[in-house]
């Protein structure tokens, strides 16, 4: 009998801890499929964040490092600069990447670090139980914006891909989602491109994946997907914001 669907070799054969209906599982699979298809499992190093995906180091079969909250791009820089032949990716949520780690994100991007960043945006802090994120949209109720996020009080959310697309070090900045098979396929295509860019030494590549958090949004998995379509996509339009190559001089990759 021909096998038509199997677990990617890069995805560990262990139960994931994610809540039912959470889209982390889909994105993990897309990253693992990409690693398999590019044949890079043996020289890939992944950096896990702090947040819901903190245990990502248990879920990928490549070497993994667990970084401090927000610092994954700096840790990735240290790995990649000392080992230019490795493939280095970070997997970070919105609090990690766009709040506490904003400086590390922006500067890794502007340096054109030749790394791949997978950015899960679900508009909320999941691990700590549903607090306001830097990407929580105006009006959204969270445990720390119980009356809804107000621009006059908590300020406006950050559109990360748009912001990073202005930087010369960025090769790819794209926003995708995984709410339906068509979009999952598109997300896979972009994630693969973000890894291929690294193999082609093109510079910093970030893929923002609009994701759901049924548990902390207080919605069923299906309603959560609909909420994503109705509220997130209008605020965070899907698309490719930059697709090219980091501006560089002639220095070799590790800056020698």
């Amino acid at each position, binding site marked *: 009998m021909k096998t038509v669907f199997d677990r990617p070799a890069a995805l560990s054969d262990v139960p994931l801890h994610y809540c039912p209906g959470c889209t982390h599982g889909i994105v993990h699979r897309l990253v693992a499929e990409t690693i398999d298809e590019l044949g890079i499992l043996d020289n890939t190093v992944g950096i896990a964040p702090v947040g819901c995906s903190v245990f990502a180091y*248990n879920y990928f079969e490549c070497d993994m*490092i667990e970084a*401090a909250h927000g610092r994954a791009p700096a*840790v990735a820089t*240290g790995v990649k600069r000392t*080992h230019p*032949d490795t493939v280095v990716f970070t997997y970070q949520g919105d609090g990690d990447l766009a709040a506490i780690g904003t*400086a590390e994100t922006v500067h890794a991007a502007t340096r054109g670090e030749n790394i791949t960043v997978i950015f899960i945006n679900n508009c909320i802090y999941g691990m700590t139980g549903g607090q306001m994120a830097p990407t929580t949209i105006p009006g959204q109720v969270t445990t720390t914006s119980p009356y809804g996020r107000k621009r006059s009080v908590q300020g406006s959310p950050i559109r990360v891909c748009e912001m990073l697309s202005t930087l010369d070090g960025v090769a790819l900045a794209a926003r995708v989602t995984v709410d339906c098979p068509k979009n999952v396929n598109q997300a896979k295509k972009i994630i693969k491109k973000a890894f291929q860019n690294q193999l082609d030494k093109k510079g910093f590549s970030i893929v923002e994946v609009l994701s759901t958090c049924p548990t902390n949004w207080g919605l069923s998995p299906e309603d959560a997907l609909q909420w994503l379509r109705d509220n997130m996509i209008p605020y965070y339009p899907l698309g490719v914001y930059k697709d090219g190559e980091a501006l560089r001089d002639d220095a070799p990759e590790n800056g020698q």
Partner: protein
Amino acid sequence: MSEKVLMKGNEAIAEAAISAGCLYFFGYPITPQTEVAEYMARRLPKVGGLCLQAESEVAAINMLMGASSAGTRAMTSSSSPGISLKSEGISYIAGCDLPCLIVNVQRGGPGLGGIQPSQQDYYQATRGVGHGDLRLIVLAPSSVQEMASLTAEAFDLADTYRMPAMLLADGALGQMMEPVDFSVFPKRELPEKTWATNGTGGKRKKNIVNSLFIEPDKLEQSILARYERYARVEAEEVRFEEVMTDDADIVLVAFGITARIAKSAIAEARKAGVKAGLLRPITLWPFPKKRLSELADTAKAFLSVEMSMGQMVDDVRLAVNGKRPVSFFGRTGGMIPSVEEVTAEILKMSESL
């Protein structure tokens, strides 16, 4: 290099690190240690290495964590306020059992403090850098030669015990020039870094560098295992220098630049007929507590001399453990104690012996 070279302390750190095979430096400018980064920026590209200026001290220590995770000998350096910023990363590095070198060329604090030399970060280095049960190997140079030799030594100690090491210097040592001989560093047999995350190469199972243990019993086990290594460091790596302690009634305890002042002061005191000696800790952690305890059987009193309001004096008291009186003399905020001041303190103490 086999002959002596006249160098600034900060530059000696950088050159010694390169000689010791450290080709990667991650840092951020801060007075009075910026010459380390500048020297690295000039030299490392010429020897196939990299000096990367980070966007912050926080990023620099995490770049170092990445480099060290991947098995690379690497370092960062800063001065007091910058070390506070690095504290988070140092805790993670300790929790992940990563070897690396962190240099602190101390200046006056708290807050922005000043830019003159100080020893106010003793507590931070020996107890308080980052959260959690952790230790750093802390080496305290007292000359430009030691800025070099202890830098090289720190890398080997870090690798041997798989833990971060700190060189705790000060702005005076960083800025002053003395002759240095780079040919005298002994080499150690070092363990292979089988734990490094630099790609499996298809030859081994994946490695994980991690400080998270969500089950408390597993976290406790990881800490107990680490403390077994710490106990080995305490048993095997204590370093100190003694000057005229054999017959000393008053033993001064001083480290770094202050030990040089203390050395002059005990000579002055002896001219005045007071038998004074000096114990200079070279490792601040592990602290030479056993030797101090032994000296408490022969000496009559101890005097800790520091450029702070008195921090190491706590360790001296713990070591002496009530056997003899322990006094403190210090200047702080970037002020350096004079030989006259310290001598006067010794003579005053001798009156009540």
